[in-house]
């Protein structure tokens, strides 16, 4: 579902949370790669302000390692995050992690997704960019796909 112009402008002024799968789709270079690249280019230029949690960064690293990527590629990925003008890596403290467990209970989420929702709360945001429809069970969260933001 494409966004209206006013919604798109609104997104430029708020921090949106990026899920791991946005970066993974670029690494996979499959059907969603172009939309994800388009979005990440906007983040790179600082047109879109965004955040990703340190936990979700680590999830990407775990996957890269599991599929044969060595330290050089992992270092490249991590260092590349520093080049995005509009990206903040948000560190999840123990307090946030504990609060996330209540979200697991309230919304039936797994820990991974609950952390993302808690990060949204911490960042005073309600928008996550993700292909994972598990977030749709949380009524106040707006899940967008990169294609929605094109």
């Amino acid at each position: 579902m494409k966004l209206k112009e006013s919604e798109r402008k609104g997104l430029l002024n708020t921090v949106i949370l990026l899920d791991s799968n946005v970066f993974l789709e670029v690494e996979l270079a499959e059907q969603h790669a172009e939309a994800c690249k388009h979005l990440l280019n906007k983040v790179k230029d600082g047109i879109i302000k965004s955040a990703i949690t340190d936990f979700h960064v680590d999830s990407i690293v775990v996957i890269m390692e599991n599929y044969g990527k060595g330290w050089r590629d992992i270092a490249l990925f991590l260092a590349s995050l520093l080049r995005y003008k509009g990206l903040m890596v948000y560190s999840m403290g123990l307090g946030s992690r504990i609060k996330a467990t209540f979200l697991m209970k309230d919304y039936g989420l797994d820990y991974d997704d609950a952390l993302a929702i808690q990060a949204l709360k911490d960042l005073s945001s309600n928008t996550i960019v993700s292909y994972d429809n598990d977030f749709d069970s949380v009524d106040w969260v707006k899940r967008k796909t990169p294609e929605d933001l094109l």
Partner: protein
Amino acid sequence: MGGIKVYIPDELEQRFRKAAMKLYGYGKGSLSIASEKAFMDWLSQVSEALDIAESIEDPVEAIYGMLSHVKKTGVDLQHEAERIRAKRALKYRNTA
């Protein structure tokens, strides 16, 4: 002492001023103290990786296709990360 003039969103400015003053008082130096801490935090995050990060011309292109040999979706992989974590945790437990 050097001086830097920066431009940040209004809301962030208000939150920053409020927090700085609550912590360091309502005097003149509060914003400088909080700013110095923020600058130091940021520098400590990036300084070790400056050389490698500087060599990356385009961060999006740099990662494009890194996992092109994997025939799964991003969401599948994300869920797989959870299973890998759990498996590793149990492995360490069994070897301990």
